[in-house]
Each structure stands twice: as C-alpha cells, then as structure tokens.
C-alpha cells in the first residue's frame, strides 16, 4: 500500500530542546492511524512540522510522494493536507454557516471567485455538514458563542468542508462532553469510510484511540518509542513505563 504521508528522520529543535529526534512514520492512504505519547513528547510539534508551521532542522516529509518540508502552511493546505488544533481555531465573530462557507476547498478559488457569492450548492453542503456534527440549529449563531466542545465539532466540519485528502486531528475528543464522544468516534469512522479521508489522530483518551486507530505510533521525549497494532502497543512495557514515568 502506498503511503499518503511519509515522515523520515524528522528533527526539530527549539534552542537546546529537541522536540522531535529523528522521527519516522508513514500513513497509508485511506487508513486511520493514531499518535500517542505523554505530555511534552513532541506530538503537536510533529503535526506543526508536517503542515509547515515551522521549518524542520533535518529530515524529509512527503505527501502523496511530493516533498513538502519546504512549503509554507497555505501551500500545504491547498494540497489537501489539513490539521485541526488542540485549542480550537474558529472564526469567532462569524456565524457557523459563514465559518463553513469560507472553508471551501481553496483549490477552487480563482481570482474571479474572490468576488463571487457562495453558491446554493456550497450553502447546502455547509448546512449538511453542520447537521452532520449536530450544530444545525445553531448555524446562525456566532461561532465564538458556542461551547468549547461545539467549537471543536465546528472546526471538524470546517476541515471537512474543504474536502481534504488527509486530516491531522489534534486531540479531537479533549474537552468534549463524554456522552458525545461515542458519536464523535462514529463520525470520524464515517468520514474515513465514506469520504475516503485518511486520518492521523493525536489522542490522550486510550479507550478512544485503541478503538479508533488500526495502527499506533507512540512518541516519548521526542523520539519514536513504539509502533504497532493497538493491542501490541497497549501491552508494550516501554509504552506503559513512559506513561507512568518509570524512568
């Protein structure tokens, strides 16, 4: 199976702190993969490196066979590789519908389309996606007035609106009402199965990630500690030690 995302020996330092040390991982197209690790192990840094937020010190990142480690954030986004944020990022003073309408696939935006109005089809799709994440009745509320969990769902809908090939989700269930988590997992599976979007998910909730991902990478202290099927990673003594701090 050809990997859609291939990270090879990526190194990223901030001053003297090595956030990622020779991290390599690959995600095959159409799969759901997980990325776990204790706090401060470099998971979010790796996400930021992949989507071009900061330049990496060495290594290579390939998306669909193309080297992207020297591209800037918007360029990578236009290739169809998007991330969501741990602390949600939404357009707070705009309504939910507007948040989605401006999140259409950027590849479809030409110079002329700058002046165009959103089409009826885009509006319908925006409403459908809001219904999909359970925010339809709030579609005319300002996004900043939603609760944190609802903003997370909105952010996910925005990502879907732009029809990415791959989504990097940074702790999608953190801060979400536990009673909604099962529904969210079902939706992530549905996105993957029906829309064919490859997912790489950072998650602290072990129950969630073990049930969702078919393969898991575990980082600790910026290094790749273990990888494998959920059951194998879960019982790996190095992973358990890293989480319990037995160093």
């Amino acid at each position: 199976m050809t990997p859609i995302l291939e990270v090879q020996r990526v190194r990223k330092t901030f001053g003297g702190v090595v956030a990622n040390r020779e991290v390599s991982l690959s995600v095959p197209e159409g799969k759901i993969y997980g990325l776990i690790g204790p706090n401060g192990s470099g998971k979010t840094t790796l996400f930021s490196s992949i989507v071009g937020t900061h330049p990496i010190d060495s290594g290579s990142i390939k998306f669909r066979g193309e080297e992207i480690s020297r591209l800037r954030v918007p360029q990578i986004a236009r290739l169809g590789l998007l991330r969501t944020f741990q602390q949600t990022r939404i357009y707070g003073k705009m309504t939910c519908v507007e948040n989605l309408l401006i999140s259409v696939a950027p590849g479809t935006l030409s110079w002329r389309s700058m002046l165009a109005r959103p089409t009826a089809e885009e509006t319908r799709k925006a409403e459908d996606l809001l219904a999909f994440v359970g925010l339809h009745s709030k579609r005319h509320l300002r996004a900043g007035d939603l609760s944190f969990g609802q903003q997370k769902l909105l952010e996910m809908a925005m990502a879907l609106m732009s029809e990415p090939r791959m989504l990097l989700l940074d702790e999608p269930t953190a801060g979400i009402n536990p009673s909604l988590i099962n529904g969210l997992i079902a939706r992530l599976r549905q996105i993957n199965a029906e829309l064919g979007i490859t997912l790489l998910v950072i998650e602290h909730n072990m129950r969630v990630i073990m049930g969702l991902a078919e393969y898991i990478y575990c980082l600790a202290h910026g290094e790749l500690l273990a990888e494998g099927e959920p059951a194998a990673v879960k019982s790996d003594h190095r992973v358990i030690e890293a989480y319990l701090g037995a160093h």
Partner: protein
Amino acid sequence: MKRWILIAAALALAIAAPAIIPAWRTQLAFLWVMIVFSLTWDLLGGQMGYNSFGNIVFFGIGMYVCAVVQRDLHLAYPVTLAAGIAAGGALAVSVAALLGSGILGLRGHYFAIGTLGLGIAAGELAGGWDFVGAGGGMVPPQYPGALGGRETFFYYLSFVLAAVTFVSLRWLYAGRFGLAINAIRDDEDKAEAMGLWTTRYKTAAWCVSALFLGIEGAIVGNLIGFIDPRETAFAGSTFGVWMVLMAILGGKGTLWGPVLGAVVFHVMKELFWTYLLGWQRVALGFLIVVIVIFFPVGILGWAREKWPELFGHRDEKRAAAEASG
C-alpha cells in the same frame, strides 16, 4: 417594497438638500466625505482587523495628483477634473498595492504603528517638494461656473462617491471577499492553515480602500479650494483620526455602523463649531473620550450584543422551544 420607498426617500432628500438649505452645502458635502472616510477605514480596521492609521496617505495622494493634472493638462475644466480624479484614484491604488506587499505582512500593533509612520512621512515629503508647491501648498484651478455653483457641483460629486462606495462595499461584503477578510480578522493563522490566499485578499482590500480615498481626495481638494500638505492633504491629526473614531463610534465591522458613526460625529462636530466656539476642540476631545469609554464596540455593536436576534444570531432549537412553551 417598504425598503425601496425608504431608499427613494433618502435619495430624494440627498438630491434636494442643496436647494432646501443652500447655506449648508459645504457642510453637507463634508457629511458625504466623512461617510467615505469612515467606510473605507472600516474595510480594513473593522472588517479585516487591520487598524490602519495611514489611510490618509491615499487621500492626500489623490488630492495632489488631481491638482497637478488639473494644473498641467491644458484642456477644458471638466476634462482635466475627470482626468485628475481618475489619475488620483489610480495612483492611490498603485501605491497601496506597492506598500501592501510589504507593510501588510505586519500584524496587530506593528501594522498600526507602521502605517502611522506612513502618514507622517507623506506629509513631510509633500511639504518639501517644490513641484507640488512645497510648504505653500497648491490651489486647484478656479471652478468655471457661476458663483456658488462650485459648492453645489462638489456636493453632488461627494454624494455620488459616497453612494458608490457604500453600494460597492455592500456587494463585496456579501460575497466570498467579505467572508475571507472577516476570517483574516478573526484568526489569520487559521485562514492560512485552511489554504486561503490571505496576502491576496489583504492587498486587494487595501487597494479598494485606496481607490475610494484617492477619488475622495481629488474631490475634496477642489471642494476646499486649497491644498496644504499637513492640514488638508495628509491631515493625520484631523481626518486621519476622525475616520477611525467614526467607524468605532458607529460599530466597526458592520456595514451601517460607519455610516451611522459618520453622521453622528459630523453633526456633533458642526454643533460644537457653531455653539461652543473657542471650546470646540475641547468638546471634540471630550466626545472622543466618551466614545472610547462608553461605546467600545460602537452603537451597532452595542445593539448587536443587546439584541442578537435582530441581527439573525439565534439558536433555532431554543427559539422553537420558547415558541411552543
């Protein structure tokens, strides 16, 4: 239907105003001028979240370019005026495009301070350049019509510009352009992460703002009949500050807010100049303090927070529950 009657009534009033109260033509012309100032500032400051203190540069450029064209193009008055207005708008847009590629890379306070420097530098440059009269300024050519015809003519020109500016911005805000600059205001990093061409939108927005300001400068130079580099053209301490205040007073980031703010501010200002002569600047300063303290989100912003339903922000499930219960 009701809406069209209102629009028709407003148009009729605007057109008839110079005939009804001829003594106030200049003040009324300045009302339209203030509305354009406020609307064009809000395009960046309110809708896009880039607080510019340098927009006055485009106004001054338009004013000088028009006067130079009128002076050096030896043709009939209407021809030179039209050419001057067009050239003023065009050069203002070119300067905005050129400056935009660099200065729009600054964010937040840095952008505000950078643009503040622009306005001051432009005033100093014009005040030292003999080609445009240096510190002595310039006098646009005499209006050829009957005495008093000048005020009426430029009243209508200002009115048309204000109307065109309003309709253009309304159209831009309703489309993807409006959504994109709002997104940049709310979270520019997110907009980039979603793949938007943010630089393109930002530069375009500044150019639109510059276009209307350049044309306005060309008109105002002729309306006042005298160009001083620091007092009329690059008047950062008067027009430059007022445009910000008017937009904030009315409610920045809304379409009608800047219009409302400009009307309220201009009327208050004229009242101070008429009834508080000698203390008018103190009163104006006091008004500014009151605006900032009591209307931090502006008149319309305040109304939107108080009655969100009127602005279409409602939770349909809750609304339905309340209606049935």
